[in-house]
């Protein structure tokens, strides 16, 4: 496991990418006692438009605070994918939602196609949980953050009455990804 990692979570305003970044940062920072930097960037739109949150996770204090070559890019829309995949580290990881990203870029790395929105809508029963489905998928693919830490960070912030929904979303994302991609492999990176 590398001790310096850069993640970018991107999508459209309203898909919960900012909140997902906060979950990751708090899971790594508070539950795993790592150093973190979380940067959020979005356009003027309250809904729509490409937006992203970026998290750096490190065992050492983080000097330069911006993501330069992400180890992982999550893209929830085509626009976000087109805009944010290019500086992916060689050999890096992309997670895409095939419902929204039809045109997958040719990258030097591995692409995981996970129907995040479909799982949220059809299996969990609420499309807005797609960001939490994505975090479940992310912890299945990488071992930088334990599913337990991330789940705890999510439940710290979820409104009362939605804990079960969020836990379900996380677990479905995790399990789907484990079954589709990870059965014969241990988690990468």
């Amino acid at each position, binding site marked *: 496991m590398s001790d310096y990692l850069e993640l970018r979570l991107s999508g459209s305003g309203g898909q919960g990418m900012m909140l997902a970044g906060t979950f990751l*940062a708090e899971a790594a920072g*508070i539950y795993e006692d790592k*150093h973190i930097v*979380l*940067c959020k960037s979005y356009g003027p739109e309250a809904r729509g438009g490409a937006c992203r949150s970026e998290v750096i996770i490190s065992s050492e204090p983080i000097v330069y*605070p911006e993501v330069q070559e992400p180890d992982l890019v999550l893209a929830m829309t085509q626009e976000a994918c087109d805009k944010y995949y290019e500086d992916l580290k060689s050999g890096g990881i992309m997670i895409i939602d095939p419902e929204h990203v039809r045109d997958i870029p040719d990258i030097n790395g591995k692409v995981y196609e996970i129907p995040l929105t479909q799982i949220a809508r059809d299996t969990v029963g609420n499309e807005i949980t797609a960001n939490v489905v994505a975090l479940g998928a992310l912890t299945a693919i990488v071992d930088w953050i334990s599913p337990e830490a991330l789940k705890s960070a999510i439940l710290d912030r979820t409104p009362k009455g939605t804990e079960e929904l969020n836990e379900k979303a996380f677990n479905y994302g995790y399990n789907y990804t484990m079954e589709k991609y990870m059965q014969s492999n241990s988690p990468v990176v």
Partner: protein
Amino acid sequence: MDKGRVAVITGNDAIAKGAIAAGMRFFAGYPITPASEISHYCAENLPKYGGKFIQMEDEIGSMAAIIGASMAGAKSMTSTSGPGFSLMQENLGFAIMAEVPCVVVDVMRFGPSQGVATVPAQADVMQARWGTHGDHPSITLALSTVKEAYELTIRAFNLAEKYRTPVILLSDATLSQMSEKIELPDPGTLEIIDRKIATVDPEQFQPYEDDGSGICPFAPYGSGYIWYTTGIVHDETGFPATSDPDKLAIQIDRLYDKINHNLEDIVQVEEYLTEDAEVILVAYGSVARAALATADTARREGIKVGVVKPVTIWPFPEQAIKKVREKAKTILVCEMNHGQLYWKVREVVEGKAQIAFLGQYNGKLIKPEKILAAIKEVTVGVC
């Protein structure tokens, strides 16, 4: 690690939290990107501490309100960005002249006038020094991490209270919007300085009488002391002294002396790998983080790079520059502007080392690779 004290917070929230920890109980402001979250936090949280938040009609009123609150004895603060900082300049001068402790946060923008609101820049460094008219000193600190945002806000209040003067905090959009993990200290462990309060009989009280320390004891309005305050240059009574040339000079000297005689206390500067460095990077705020990262990568390539990071920008840390100019061959100033602190560094270097400037003013934080490229470019034939 005490999990209960660990928080993932933005630079803006860290400033607000630090201010409340320092004892700030009055905040007046007008919303402006990228500083608004400081107001939001204070609006939501100050009442819990018995404090007051007021959204004023503009930044002129905001500055006036925090001066009034401070004269009544409260620790007060406002926050803004470039356009609002311009509007505050007149009353900022009043606070310097009338010696009113307060803290002004400027989350710097890019460009003149309205500029660009949402991107980082360091364009107000000279405005923090000379934005208000007339001869005056300035205490200005630059923030580069969320931890510093918390700690230096407390320090800003301590300096403001100790020296009876406004203190300016300069931040930028990178720091204001990003989150880092910090462990918030136990409030009981913090060093908190409160202004020296007048104890003489109210009848004998002279509001601007130097007690020998250079700093006049303060009598909060409403505490039984009745005194006159003006932005006009005054004598020890507080009334205008415009007809007495000697008294006029004394007051201006005292404004400078109370800062200049305490530089060791006020000036804070950090050095990294400067001992054997052939190239010194001078950088502050968010850019200092790029410079520190560059020093490490440059040394891996065999280039001896060190960093001088002024935390106190004004008064400028001249001694730190005088020390490195003797050994270093090149001093490269890196700023997100068209060249501001550069001129001060150049003045202090006095030609004793090669001086160069890397300015970036496109709304992006300077990357370490750009600084490294600049080092290689400017040191051709020098190192």
